[in-house]
């Protein structure tokens, strides 16, 4: 099921919320587990078994790691940890990467391995990462073992963040597993957060998506430079609002249920360097890779050469985490290159400039090169990606901007809303007006957004049949 759909909003969510509120405290985890399984099975009626397998496997591994540790058998515990990680990576490798790798082998060595065309199980990249973090944290002693399989199942399958994050580490919510408050103030906050997230997804991300789709249909060989940049703006806003909207909805729902999920985005487009951008973009994923890959590889403690290598490894992995395709690898390595350049020289140069100028230039440079990065993200065909980038810098016609102006006019207001909304300005505004607002105004705000979102969702299915027409 997806959040931005009528089934979720007008069936699943109200039923789940009412059931949760009336449910006695000791059964709430079980209820969330059940609701999450239904939520997942709605989209993946078969692969839900895979997720249950993963749950049971990591539950058992967690128990065994703990048991070995208690017995003082650290090698035994390590063996179970490795087994847990291998199983998770095998799941991910088989369902997500096997097809890609076989394709490359077949092309590279002219082998005739039968092609594997498996549908990617929804959310597998997220839940395998979450369960891995659990096993590792139990091994490291950073999380206590979970002995109740229902509670553990709830953690793995929890529907608010199951499909698109944020990646919640077990240690993040350990305290709230058994005992969590259900206060009306929290529900209030959660509702507002959820509604804003829904509006970001439905009213903004989907609309920018339409603009991007329109621009994407223009053949790269005739794409004017101005249109290319408009495309990057549209796509950059689409992916930001899509992803951060989903995170807001997840965090909001988590808050309603009494959890406190980690933040995932902090106005990344305000950053003044690419390193900063990725400290503010999909923060839980960056933290996961830092915690479980970068630091274990030695991070920055083993000399500059090693650090550069570590950055490259982490970003290659980050790239292919986003999708099993060469362009994502290029995307990751592209940013690895920028991060390394920044570490070695760029940041020092910006620091030498007067502060305001340095920040300004840094901001522009970040937006431009993050934007160019999105070109790799959206084009699975690398030749097309490079063609597109060439067009951006005038390899072609700078003129013929009439079409760009047409679309700019169509989307002007939305683009302005999108750009301003991606900064911290609305949040600052909300803070300063807090004392003038009361619950009634907030309620009107929520009701208004829900109504408009409903109209957009119903409209999305608008599909006039016009073949009769001539």
């Amino acid at each position: 099921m997806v959040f931005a759909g009528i089934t979720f909003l007008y069936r699943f969510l109200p039923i789940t919320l009412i059931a949760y509120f009336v449910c006695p405290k000791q059964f709430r985890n079980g209820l969330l587990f059940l609701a999450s399984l239904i939520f997942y099975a709605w989209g993946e009626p078969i692969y839900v078994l895979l997720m249950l397998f993963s749950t049971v496997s990591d539950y058992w591994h967690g128990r065994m790691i703990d048991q070995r540790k208690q017995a003082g058998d650290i090698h035994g515990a390590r063996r179970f940890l490795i087994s847990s990680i291998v199983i998770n990576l095998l799941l991910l490798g088989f369902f997500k990467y096997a097809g890609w790798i076989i394709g490359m082998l077949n092309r590279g060595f002219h082998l005739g391995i039968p092609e594997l065309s498996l549908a990617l199980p929804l959310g597998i990249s997220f839940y395998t990462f979450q369960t891995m973090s659990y096993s590792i944290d139990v091994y490291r002693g950073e999380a206590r073992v979970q002995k109740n399989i229902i509670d553990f199942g709830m953690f793995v399958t929890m529907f608010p963040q199951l499909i698109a994050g944020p990646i919640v580490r077990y240690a993040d919510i350990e305290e709230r597993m058994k005992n969590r408050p259900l206060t009306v103030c929290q529900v209030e906050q959660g509702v507002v957060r959820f509604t804003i997230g829904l509006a970001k997804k439905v009213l903004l991300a989907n609309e920018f998506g339409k603009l991007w789709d329109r621009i994407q249909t223009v053949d790269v060989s005739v794409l004017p430079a101005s249109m290319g940049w408009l495309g990057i703006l549209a796509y950059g806003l689409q992916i930001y609002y899509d992803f951060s909207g989903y995170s807001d909805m997840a965090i909001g729902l988590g808050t309603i249920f009494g959890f406190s999920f980690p933040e995932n985005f902090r106005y990344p487009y305000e950053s003044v360097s690419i390193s900063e951008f990725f400290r503010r973009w999909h923060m839980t994923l960056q933290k996961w890779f830092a915690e479980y890959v970068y630091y274990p590889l030695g991070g920055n403690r083993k000399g500059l050469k090693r650090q550069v290598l570590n950055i490259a490894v982490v970003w290659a992995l980050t790239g292919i985490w986003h999708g099993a395709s060469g362009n994502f690898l290029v995307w990751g390595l592209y940013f690895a290159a920028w991060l390394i350049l920044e570490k070695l020289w760029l940041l020092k140069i910006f620091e030498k400039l007067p502060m305001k100028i340095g920040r300004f230039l840094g901001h522009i440079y970040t937006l431009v090169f993050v934007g160019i990065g999105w070109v790799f993200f959206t084009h699975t065909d690398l030749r097309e990606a490079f063609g597109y980038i060439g067009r951006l810098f005038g390899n072609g016609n700078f003129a013929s901007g009439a079409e760009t102006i047409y679309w700019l006019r169509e989307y002007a207001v939305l683009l302005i809303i999108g750009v301003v909304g991606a900064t911290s300005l609305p949040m600052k505004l909300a803070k300063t007006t807090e004392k003038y607002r009361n619950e009634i105004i907030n309620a009107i705000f929520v009701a208004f957004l829900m109504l408009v979102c409903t109209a957009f969702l119903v409209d999305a299915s608008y599909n006039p049949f016009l073949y009769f027409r001539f």
Partner: protein
Amino acid sequence: MKKGYLQKIRHWIVPVVFLGMLIGGGVWQSFTPDRDYSVYERRLLQQRPALTVAHILDASYMSDYEAYLTDQFPMRDHWITMKTYAGLLLGQREFGGVYITENDGLIELHRMSEMDDGRIESNTGTLVSFAEEMIGRLGTDHVRVMLVPTADCIKKNKIPDGAGLFDQSAYLQKLHETFAQMSYGGVLVPVEAALMTHAGEAVYYKTDHHWTMLGAYYGYTAYAGEHAKTLDDFSFRVITDCFTGTVAAKCGMYRMKDEIVLAYPKKEQEYLVNHNEGARINNSLYEEDKAYGDDPYAVYLGGNDAIVTVETGCGTGRSLLIVRDSYANCFVPYLTQEYEKITLIDLRYYNGSVTKLVGEGYTDILVLYNLPNFLSDRQVYKLLR
């Protein structure tokens, strides 16, 4: 004491409103009777899917259920209109490939990027060969081609630059030159110029992709030249004033309404109209009951049949074969005083040979389409069959 109580209760407002809307929406939906058909969208709506194990396992139940809830959402058409208005409020003017103008109605856009160059070339080639062959048989004065530009060409000054429109004028100019080089200069009827002169009048519907009865009249003056009858030779009658056509459906904008006008020659005539070789025979160029059905435009000649024969009994000794799309439907009333017999064939449904049909003694032939439709039609090759 009381204040403390108020402090507590006010935090309930947002959650109660939110949950109330979700529950209210859900309950409202459950109690709204399901509709089978959407008149606006002209399609069957998704019905409650059957709950079977097989449908659950292949997830088709779930996707059908989402489609069902969305299609059957209470006041569906109003939500869609609300979305369109939200877009208008945000300064958007184009919805579903339709440009919304203040005073000139809804203009359907035909984009260069949506046209298939290969098909344009082959359809043009077919048309030229067909015209050449017909001229050989009937003479230059008895063969005419009318490719009628659509509203986005005649009213292009209402649409901002950069919409990437297919240049219908340039195409017509080129086609005219092609014919002129073969010294068939008069074959292509200068319908664009005639419509351009009257672009400020209601020559197109505000909500539909067709030309109006008036637009067709100006087309007729270009076709008949100096022999054309004047507007005074006809009387006009409005049969409905609440027509919303295909273009309104395309963009989800139902506020505007159009009139459907019927034209009658003042000089009384009797007709025998034969649809699909005897399937329906009647005495009028109009099937008036259709004006109140799902597709009111079908009032003209009863819609699109494979072959329609109109006998007018005007005694001029001339007969006309029209190869056409629906742009011809409201064109025929202007011709009934000049031709004894008018036959219309629609190549999408008519599978006989056109050249053979011409041999049945027609004195004149006319190819009448709206231009973008002609250039994207897949059946044009049948002209030479």
